[in-house]
């Protein structure tokens, strides 16, 4: 059975290869081929899943060793896969949601002449992402890690003729590279500490090394996670990443890739368990980001950017949960899965709206769309309810658990984290309601587009709506399905070892609190955007609002410190290279030449002066000889 694992990766990889090298003649069928292959890997995933359910909790972990990759003295890196419950969860999420989004893209990208390549990239992404979650050692994970980075680079910049897109893509890759640096350093640390970087040996041996080492490794892993999952301080790329086609935003920048950081931390649980400081750092990052993202989400008028902000903040929740250790791992993953459903749904919805509105993204120019695109409205609405944690829907269960766990951390930390999480919930409710109201309610604020014609919104084709519906279903029921009888917890426990912290508050109180803040958030939003008409041009807004619109000045900071600074540095270095390093050499040459010119003057053509030099020479010769004897 485990021999199937490789196929999970192989199928989409094959697709990518064929589609990218295939050339124009594949334009016809390319998209179907791509969808088919991703579906194939989903099916294989299901097969393995059912097989796995058949086994007892302990022997569920499968292992496949393909070949030894880099055999060097004292250094062993293999291409080998490990499929346990955790990986399985991801496999299903990735290939499942992935397939749906392939389907969606068929409609969405219909009019793009480079659709074949788009699907090639999508398959490439699937392959890399699956490799990431299936790898049995950190180095192979690193391959997938950078692979998804590449895919995301290619897809964000898919419309390369738009400079903004190209820039966004580059930015994404670079910021991710910073994170990757963390990952590679972590791997090196593992190598020097444990002599290996395969999950099994490393995670078992954590006990044998110092906490300091573990903390170092943990922090490096956190850096990596920050890069990939757009956590403060490496979050700046996610907003711009929305330059990519909407399906990409849905799949990569909402459902799957950005959650890789969570996977990494949960996977490395053993390391973090041994390094409380690292864990604390993780929780802090998570907490900060969930507020950061939420605040940004409140201010954005671009629907996708708003959703991106919310993604950021939701992943903040997951990271926070993962930082809580065994208390939180399960919920982190659970929220990750549910979030995968509803956020993907929301994005597809947004895409569908834009599709109907001539690719207009400014929510202030929407309004009253619910009549025109009912399906979108409903699915989007369900996603909305899920994300704000409306009782009974997915988000409710998963987020609630995280907030609980946060309190359960205990001590002042627990209180702080918990309340932050609560606050986050409130803001989530606020900005999502805002999005909802601006888009589907109120009066039309449609503006004529470049060609000067008003958009006539219309429902999207089946190939787009079906995935939306399916995802909506997921976002409604997934949470409940997982939580009833703690199914999900038991499923993951063998990998993540759950323990219930001792929460100072009862589950009921937490739920109650959550409800309260939820109501507050929603009503606030309604007061602002539901009751009175919304101006098409955004008001100047408070200082915070303006800052939030600019991603809380993060980009400005980067620009001033990194970009400008870097430019100055390189420019001055170029100068140094030319004047100093080269200058020294040329200078020497020049001085020798000058010396030559001066000596040359001695050759003045007068025989008598030649004789003088001879005479002088002879004198010197004699004197020198005598001196030699004297001394």
């Amino acid at each position, binding site marked *: 059975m485990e021999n199937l694992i490789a196929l999970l990766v192989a199928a989409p990889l094959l697709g990518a290869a064929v589609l990218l090298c295939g050339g124009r003649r594949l334009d016809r069928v390319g998209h179907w081929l791509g969808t088919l292959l991703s579906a194939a890997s989903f099916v294989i995933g299901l097969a393995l899943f059912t097989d796995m359910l058949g086994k007892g909790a302990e022997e569920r972990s499968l292992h496949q060793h393909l070949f030894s990759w880099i055999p060097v003295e004292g250094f062993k890196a293999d291409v080998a896969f490990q499929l346990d419950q955790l990986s399985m969860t991801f496999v299903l999420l990735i290939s499942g949601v992935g397939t749906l989004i392939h389907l969606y893209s068929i409609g969405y990208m219909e009019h793009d002449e480079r659709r074949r390549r788009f699907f090639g990239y999508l398959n490439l992404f699937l392959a890399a992402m699956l490799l990431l979650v299936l790898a049995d050692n950190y180095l192979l994970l690193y391959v997938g890690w950078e692979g998804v980075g*590449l895919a995301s680079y290619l897809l964000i910049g898919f419309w*390369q*003729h738009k400079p903004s897109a190209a820039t966004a893509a580059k930015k994404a890759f*670079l910021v991710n590279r910073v994170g990757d*640096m963390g990952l*590679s350093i972590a791997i090196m640390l593992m190598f020097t500490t444990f*002599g290996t970087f395969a999950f099994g040996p490393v995670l078992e041996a954590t006990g044998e090394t110092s906490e300091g080492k573990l903390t170092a490794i943990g922090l490096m892993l956190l850096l990596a996670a920050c890069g990939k999952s757009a956590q403060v301080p490496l979050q700046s790329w996610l907003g711009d990443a929305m330059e990519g086609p909407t399906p990409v935003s849905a799949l990569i920048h909402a459902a799957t890739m950005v959650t890789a950081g969570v996977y990494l931390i949960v996977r490395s649980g053993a390391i973090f368990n041994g390094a409380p400081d690292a864990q604390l750092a993780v929780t802090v990052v998570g907490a900060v980001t969930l507020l950061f993202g939420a605040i940004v989400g409140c201010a954005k008028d671009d629907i996708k950017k708003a959703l991106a902000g919310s993604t950021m903040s939701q992943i903040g929740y997951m990271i926070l949960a993962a930082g809580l250790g065994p208390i939180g791992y399960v919920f982190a993953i659970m929220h990750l899965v549910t979030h995968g459903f509803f956020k993907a749904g929301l994005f597809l919805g947004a895409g569908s709206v834009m599709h109907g509105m001539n690719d207009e993204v400014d929510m202030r120019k929407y309004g009253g769309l619910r009549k025109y695109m009912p399906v979108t409205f409903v699915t989007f609405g369900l996603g909305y309810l899920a994300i704000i944690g409306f009782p009974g829907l997915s988000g409710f269960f998963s987020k609630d658990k995280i907030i609980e766990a946060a309190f359960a951390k205990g001590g002042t930390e627990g209180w702080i984290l918990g309340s932050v999480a609560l606050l986050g919930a409130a803001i989530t409710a606020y900005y999502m309601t805002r999005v909802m109201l601006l888009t589907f309610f109120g009066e039309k604020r449609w503006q004529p587009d470049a060609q000067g014609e008003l958009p006539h919104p219309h429902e999207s084709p089946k190939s787009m709506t079906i995935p939306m519906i399916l995802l909506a279903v997921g976002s409604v029921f997934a949470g409940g399905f997982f939580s009833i009888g703690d199914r999900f917890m038991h499923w993951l426990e063998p990998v993540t070892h759950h323990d219930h912290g001792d929460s100072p508050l009862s589950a009921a109180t937490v739920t109650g609190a959550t409800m309260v803040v939820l109501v507050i958030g929603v009503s606030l939003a309604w007061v602002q955007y539901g009751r009175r008409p919304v101006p098409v041009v955004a008001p100047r807004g408070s200082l915070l609002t303006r800052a939030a619109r600019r991603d809380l000045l993060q980009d400005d900071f980067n620009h001033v410190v990194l970009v400008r600074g870097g430019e100055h540095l390189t420019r001055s270095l170029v100068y140094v290279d030319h004047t100093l390093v080269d200058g020294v050499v040329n200078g020497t040459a020049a001085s020798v030449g000058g010396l030559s010119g001066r000596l040359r003057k001695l050759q003045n053509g007068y025989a008598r002066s030649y004789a003088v030099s001879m005479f002088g020479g002879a004198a010197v010769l004699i004197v020198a000889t005598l001196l030699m004897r004297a001394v």
Partner: protein
Amino acid sequence: MSFPLLTATAALPAVGAIATAAVPAARRTAAKWLALLFSLATLALAITVLIRFDPDGDRYQLTESHAWIADFGVRYELGVDGIAVSLIALTALLLPFIILAGWHDADPLETKSSRWRPTQGFFALILAVEAMVIISFQATDVFLFYIFFEAMLIPMYFLIGGFGDRAHAGSDEKASAQRSYAAVKFLLYNLVGGLIMLAAVIGLYVVAGNFSIQEIAEARANGSLDMATNTERLLFLGFFFAFAVKAPLWPLHTWLPNAMGESTAPVAVLITAVVDKVGTFAMLRFCLQLFPEASKWATPVILVLALISIIYGALLAVGQRDIKRLVAYASISHFGFIVLGIFAMTSQGQSGATLYMVNHGLSTAALMLVAGFLISRRGSRLIADYGGVQKVAPVLAGTFLIGGLATLSLPGLAPFVSEFLVLVGAFARYPVVGIIATLGIVLAALYTLVLYQRTMTGPVKPEVSTMPDLRVRELVVVAPLIALLISLGVYPKPLTDLVNPAVEHTMSDVQKKDPKPEVEAAK
């Protein structure tokens, strides 16, 4: 005695050079095909060497040894270890591509006087360089190595100065002036390096009395030859200086951007992918083996220089306006990595360094040759003159991107393997060094992607709007390189198997053990 395979491998291109040069002026195309033929035949021989070589056999194999200049204690001694074999294979492999890529680079612009035969000369010189490079990889006699290490400069010099890049901003006079400046700079830098090495070579003779590295290494090992510490250090410095110029290591690097910028893309590849490798190879082969103690003594400084090269080269690459100069500075950064790996003195580092030499050869070749195709289309080397190319020439853009990704050593492509090995190797002994070097990978991403974005993406510039996509000849050049990059990235085992034993030998030369992992050490 058996068939002198190594001599043949080195001699064949030399013969080819003479033959090509002898082709009459009018039969230009014939000369091209002849050169290509010889390079392919050499490749075949190199592959036979690869097959005949047994990784687990003696350290030096296929050895040949004949008396040559007894008075100088010089013998004609050839022999290859895993490292040499892989580099010879690389050289022989790249040459056909270089020749193909340069197919039209030396066509005379207007019919000059019939005696002047640039095309024949161009290809003859390229083959001559190949011959000399190969034999300097094979030489196990210091003097023999030195001779070709130096002689190599002359054909290279004519290639740089005589056949410049036609896509030159500025007048012809300016072009030729800059070209010969670059050529002279190249020659003088390397000649000075070589002459200083000559002093060291003579010194070595005075100390050791002969030039065979095997004998000297043995004598040093069994203590029958002991150098005074200072002598060894001076000799080491003499050797290292020459190699550091060739490699090139900061601050001796400034000849490379000029040389690569002014020469045609294939020649640039010849410089950075083939010729410069002799320098790093020689560090591994001669510095470590002949002067182990001095090597250890100098390590800290060299590591610092290597680090500077890595960061500095990358930063300058970011600052370049000229595509080829950008690649040149990128190479400087990469050579920094190679040197780092060599002097980290760990198995991973040195295996990594060796792999790096091969992989860097492939990746630079891919990137630079595609860049050459691009430049030949638009007739400009300035990044600013391009934009939106991927819209009109997607395949070209695609290959360019892959070359770039290889340069930033993306996992899955060959350079990643070597770069990571080097980093790990360095980190294992000098963590701080390892971490700083890791910055290099971020910067690599920066300059590569900036280059790609500025040239390939964005709105299509009118000048490039009519640019044709890759032709068949060009695809034939690029495709195999990319295939190799990918396959060696996914399955580098053959190469590592070839290299590992040689690396173990070197490690034992310098009497260094890999640092034990903490956990094992604890036990």
